């Protein structure tokens, strides 16, 4: 076998023996990737034959029959699309303009000075993940002050690998207090006040994932003050606007407050949950800038980042979202429907707590109704979670997180009973 090439290029020292080519593979040394923990929960759930089984791992909304819910305003928007004879031409790299503008307005509020002055750039992203990644890549390339991204402890599991793959480093600030199942505000303030200046801090705009624990407005004000004092670059992840409290303005309050305080934030938005557009990948990434001219420069660089990732974004989801946001009747209908989803979640929280009381549980379950959004950190320990799965066919992640969306009026009693059994 010729080794001439190898001699000419001594830097290349493959880890596998050439003697075996072509009998072995280029990929012999590739390790099996670890199974996704959440996916694993769903797989195990599928295999379970217990008729009472519950999947509380799923991060998608379910109606009170446990079924996926396609919003009526979405169906209407789709019908409008079907009736128009639209072509399939490439979108611009930055995405559908009607969508990105409406997204910015939704997040910032129509009266926002930042929105009206045009000192922002919004590009269409591949739902929340894609939008986060665009921002992460942008920071890696242009934010030279720091490589460090501070995440709340805990945060969405995918935040860490997203920022890591973008070439940034991860740090953490205290956030969740497992003793009280609520916000460790003094811990958070303490940690944040010590973050090196000009570091990047990620904040969940509302409905913190996975804990469901959000700061109150007074707490947000203090967080804004300390973040400003430390001169930190703020990156908001807003995946649940409207879905958390049922009120889009309330859920965007923190983002808007920060901007009003002169903090030029980065923002990732997702329409997966609040419009039920999960698989259509509708999302947006925004940068609040000093002025419109800077926004144009930033936009031009975002396009340079996006083009070698996937060229330009998919139309379908963005078009649906755009029609909804820009058609007054549909927008009204959407606001009612998103409130409906939020209300059902809140109602399930309330029913779970009252059922636990009825079961005779002496524990304090107030955190279940204090927390907000799709997820709830129950405070259950791994052993208890395992018992729930083995004895009751109730599936959730080991950290005790449940997706309240998986709870229905039909199974909340069973859930309360099971939780009581493993915690009494």
């Amino acid at each position, binding site marked *: 076998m*010729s080794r001439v090439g190898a001699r*000419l290029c001594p830097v290349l020292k493959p880890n596998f023996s050439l003697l075996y080519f*072509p009998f072995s593979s280029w990929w012999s040394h*590739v390790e099996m990737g670890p199974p*996704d923990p959440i996916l694993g929960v769903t797989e195990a759930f599928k295999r379970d034959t217990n008729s009472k089984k519950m999947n509380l791992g799923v991060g998608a909304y379910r109606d009170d029959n446990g079924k996926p819910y396609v919003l009526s305003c979405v169906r209407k928007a789709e019908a409008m699309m079907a009736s128009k004879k639209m072509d399939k031409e490439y979108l611009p790299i930055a995405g559908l303009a009607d969508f990105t503008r409406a997204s910015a307005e939704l997040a910032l509020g129509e009266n926002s000075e930042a929105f009206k002055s045009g000192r922002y750039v919004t590009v269409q992203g591949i739902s929340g993940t894609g939008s986060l990644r665009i921002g992460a890549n942008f920071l890696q390339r242009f934010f030279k002050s720091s490589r460090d991204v501070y995440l709340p402890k805990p945060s969405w599991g995918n935040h860490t690998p997203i920022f890591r793959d973008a070439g940034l480093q991860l740090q953490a600030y205290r956030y969740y207090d497992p003793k009280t199942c609520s916000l460790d505000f003094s811990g958070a303030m303490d940690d944040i006040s010590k973050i090196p200046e000009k570091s990047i801090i990620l904040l969940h705009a509302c409905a913190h994932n996975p804990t469901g624990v959000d700061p109150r407005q007074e707490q947000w004000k203090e967080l804004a003050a300390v973040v400003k004092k430390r001169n930190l670059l703020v990156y908001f992840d807003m995946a649940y606007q409207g879905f958390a409290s049922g009120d889009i303005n309330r859920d965007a309050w923190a983002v808007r407050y920060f901007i009003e305080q002169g903090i030029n934030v980065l923002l990732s938005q997702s329409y997966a949950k609040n419009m039920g557009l999960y698989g259509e*990948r509708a999302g947006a990434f925004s940068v609040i800038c000093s002025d419109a001219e800077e926004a144009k*420069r930033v936009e031009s660089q975002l396009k340079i980042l996006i083009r*070698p990732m996937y060229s*330009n974004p*998919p139309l379908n989801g963005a078009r649906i979202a755009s029609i909804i946001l820009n058609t007054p009747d549909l927008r009204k209908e959407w606001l009612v429907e998103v409130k409906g989803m939020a209300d059902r979640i809140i109602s399930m929280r309330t029913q779970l707590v009252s059922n636990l009381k009825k079961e005779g549980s002496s524990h304090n379950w107030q955190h279940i109704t204090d927390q907000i959004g799709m997820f709830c950190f129950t405070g259950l320990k791994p052993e208890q979670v395992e018992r729930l799965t083995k004895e009751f066919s109730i599936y959730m992640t080991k950290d005790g997180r449940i997706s309240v969306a998986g709870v229905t009026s039909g199974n909340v009693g069973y859930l309360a009973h099971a939780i009581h059994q493993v915690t009494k």
Partner: protein
Amino acid sequence: MAASIFTAVPRAPPVAVFKLTADFREDGDARKVNLGVGAYRTDEGQPWVLPVVKKVEQMIASDSSLNHEYLPILGLPEFRANASRIALGDDSPAIKENRIGSVQSLGGTGALRIGAEFLRRWYNGNNNTATPVYISAPSWENHNSVFVDAGFKDIRTYHYWDAAKRGLDLQGLLDDMEKAPEFSIFILHACAHNPTGTDPTPDQWKQIAAVMKRRFLFPFFDSAYQGFASGSLDKDAWAVRYFVSEGFELFCAQSFSKNFGLYNERVGNLTVVGKDADNVQRVLSQMEKIVRTTWSNPPSQGARIVATTLCSPQLFAEWYDNVKTMADRVLLMRSELRSRLESLGTPGTWNHITEQIGMFSFTGLNPKQVEYMIKEKHIYLMASGRINMCGLTTKNLDYVAKSIHEAVTKVQ
């Protein structure tokens, strides 16, 4: 307010091909012709939504059992399997031996990027960013950016286009492969080379494969025009299938933008061919991790359309027919343009116009002549002299031919 952290962000130049279209749109001249962006146009100069696509979209729209739930990370299973089957062939030994994998991606670009990210992490050692990546000279300009952004530090070109003879520089290509460090990655255009429209013949592919095998070079195919090039799926996949039959492990980035006309739905697929199922499984598990931090899971609409079509014999036949319609129109425009140039006696040889294949033709016009075309004749084409044959119509053929004639005779 403190100075912005983005004060120093420079304004990036616009992507050339999109700037061209933007300029075209602003041009008020009635004679204007857009021979820039690579998208199919009818003889009326209009975008064309394939009839089969319209039909399937209506089926999807009226199916109330469908929802918008997340697809799996690697994509819609029926799409993945069928997309790879289209590339490799129904009777592919690799499929029979269960040693292929597929990753639904956002267009051909997305497939290239996932493949590139994987190779950077796992090929030729771990995280070996020094592995040379060879891209044809010229190539689609985004190839370079994809591999640079994936982290590769040593991007090189391999000889491809021979400007003097207006054809493939096979000897230059083979020489580059002989000299390339072992394990280098080569980006190969499966068919309808962009931008030259010049493909190796089957015999030339055999020579290329022989060198690549001997020198342990990794084939990464970019297949954006299967079916669209010749009208035959099998013919356009010949090179990929030949490499598979020769025992190569390879990647093939597929796009369904052109052959399904689904440009804005971002439908693509990365086909992985490995030595055996175990290797492929491990590769896919790692690609899953890469997908998860890039877009989590792919968009559903376009994949559904393609999967539905490929799974139904009747719809498949309709699709095949639609593809042939597009390919035939392009072939017709090629022969019409060539015959006009030859009738006009335009200096130079013009047989390359019909010998080239696919959407694009490298006319041979130099930058000055291109500028003339744009400024004086309001005919928009890339500075490289690349034209999109789809921009030609029976109505504008005469004008374009005469303009090329003028450019060649007046401008040197």
